[in-house]
């Protein structure tokens, strides 16, 4: 065959190099390769090397932190009305930045709306005020907080129902599974929103009702995913071993199943949160969500929409925040999925 290099000139190698070393170095082999990272480290490294995911994570962290410390961060009481100072445009101190200088187009002329309303010289609202003279920035901060609370609670309820349901259905199999799956099928064949709306009609409007209404259909997706994975895990050797060793079902579930299901749970959670935020906004937008005077992103959008034609900033601000949260959670969900599921990279 082709290669003729070297064959003719046998390399000159001293004899002592030809000592047999037998197999005592068989185990040194591992050291040759790069050390393999543990799975979780690997996941973290992949997540943090994904720029989009990092940006989303940062944005979300900032939003969550601001919501968490809303009372400290918000410049005003979100529900305090000051009717004389209603519908003021955004103003950033006495800096004269167009769009943030408190001027407003009135009949073709730019007028200092603050002066007209008789506000004192050092009164300013960063994002303006609404029709009741409430500070929009503060309302957005508190509104975001409320929306996030709804989303997180709804997601928690989702987990509490969906995960055990999926595990039991997948683990038991057979008749139990069939019946449980029929229920899932029925629940999922009514459009989610209709169930949510029905629940909202029946329950008293408020935070708890929204959470229940959203969670009552939300768990289905989680349950489905968990069931499918439990089915697979059930046949894994270490789980079969644990079963033959007579470990109790609860112990198997908590010790073996949940850790293996955690990636699915985390990823699905990242898709449940924006969903819940959407439902809250939707319900509040059509007027059956969070009752006045409290603010949520949905009520702010609804108020904003009414004034949008003349005072677009009242809708833009909550719309942007809502969109950022939705986009960032979705993208972070994607990033997490890629990080947990390495075959989907390169």
């Amino acid at each position, binding site marked *: 065959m082709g290669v003729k290099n070297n064959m003719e000139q046998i390399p000159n190698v001293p004899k002592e190099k030809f000592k047999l070393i037998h197999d005592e170095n068989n185990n040194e082999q591992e050291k040759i390769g790069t050390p393999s990272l543990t799975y979780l480290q690997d996941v973290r490294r992949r997540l943090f090397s994904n720029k989009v995911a990092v940006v989303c994570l940062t944005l979300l962290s900032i939003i969550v932190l601001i919501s968490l410390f809303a009372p400290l961060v918000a410049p005003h009481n979100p529900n305090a009305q000051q009717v004389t100072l209603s519908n003021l445009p955004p103003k950033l101190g006495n800096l004269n930045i167009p769009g943030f200088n408190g001027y407003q187009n009135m009949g073709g002329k730019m007028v200092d709306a603050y002066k007209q309303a008789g506000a004192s010289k050092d009164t300013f609202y960063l994002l303006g005020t609404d029709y009741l003279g409430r500070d929009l920035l503060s309302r957005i901060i508190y509104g975001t907080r409320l929306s996030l609370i709804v989303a997180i609670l709804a997601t928690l309820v989702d987990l509490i129902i969906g995960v055990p349901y999926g595990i039991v259905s997948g683990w038991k199999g057979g008749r139990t599974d069939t019946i449980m799956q029929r229920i899932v099928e029925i629940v999922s*064949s009514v*459009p989610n*929103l209709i169930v949510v709306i029905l629940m909202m*009609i*029946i329950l008293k409007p408020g935070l708890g009702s929204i959470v229940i209404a959203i969670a009552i259909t939300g768990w289905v997706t989680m349950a489905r995913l968990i069931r499918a994975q439990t089915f697979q895990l059930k046949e894994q050797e270490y789980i079969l071993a644990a079963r033959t060793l007579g470990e109790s079902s609860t112990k198997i579930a908590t010790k073996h199943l949940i850790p293996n299901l955690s990636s699915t749970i985390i990823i699905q959670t990242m898709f449940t949160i924006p969903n819940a935020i959407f439902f809250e906004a939707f319900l509040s*937008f059509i007027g*059956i969500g969070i009752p006045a005077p409290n603010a949520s992103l949905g009520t702010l959008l609804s108020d904003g929409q009414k004034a949008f034609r003349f005072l677009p900033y009242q809708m833009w601000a909550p719309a942007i925040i*809502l969109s950022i949260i939705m986009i960032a959670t979705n993208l972070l969900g994607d990033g997490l999925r890629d990080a947990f599921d390495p075959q989907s990279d390169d």
Partner: protein
Amino acid sequence: MAKYILKRIFYLFLTLFIIATLTFFLMKMLPGTPFSNQNRMSPDQLKIVKAQYGLDQSVFVQYVRYMGGLLQGNLGTSFQFNNEPVTALIGQRLAPSMQIGAQAMILGTVLGILLGAVAAIRKNTWVDTLATFISILGLSIPSFVLAVLLQFYLAYKWHIYPVALWDNFQSSVLPTLALAALPLGNVARFMRTEMVDVMSSDYIELAKAKGNSSWKVVTKHALRNSLIPVVTIIGPMAVSVMTGSMVVENIFSIPGIGEQFVKSITTNDYPTIMGLTIFYSFLLVVIILIVDILYGFIDPRIRLGNGGKE
């Protein structure tokens, strides 16, 4: 296949029966009477009205009556709107909803398929990033926010389309656009995932090994195989369009069933809410059934398989 379809139709009715029952009893649990926000009525008047709607009977009798009515396609009578039968109400208002819904689905699906396919073919390039970003925007921005923005800029400010009017095709453009964003995002993402999967499969490798150009590999093998599963998300997409339609119709004052539904909620018109709930569910289960059957016909593995899928 026929046996499979029959079985599915049986389950469809079972599901609808359960939904109707649950809806009925949920409605009975409602606090107060539906008339509480009407002009004060004397107890006598109230009694007459109640009798008129059959509300003086026991809950069980009401239930049997209601279900009997359902079987004959009677969804009850509205408390509002001149006591019109709910079916008549739906009949009058179905066309606009169907029109914008169908337009949005078609537009969203076609654009979504293109976007997803391009992203998959140009995987890990800026084209892919851009396509992914567009689909995430479509998924993330609620249709009612989009509707308000479209209305403000394309109607109020630039006068390209009517603000809130329902007569010709022109007036359906903005609501269609607002509703199409979500299916677009959904389809694009789904299509991308499917196609990336297909593109890395052995038969695509073989198609290349046959000497097909990259373009032919895509058009002759990859597209068909990735398109078939897209059919499966038509159901969930229809749901999201229905959902979005409720507010979008409201924003654009379109006389559709979505607008009706929201109106009924704010006026406590229980029979209409109930009727529309059952109607929406019916629509959804029928769409899902049609999609499943359709899937069986276009995917040779199921079409020719032993009696269809489980």
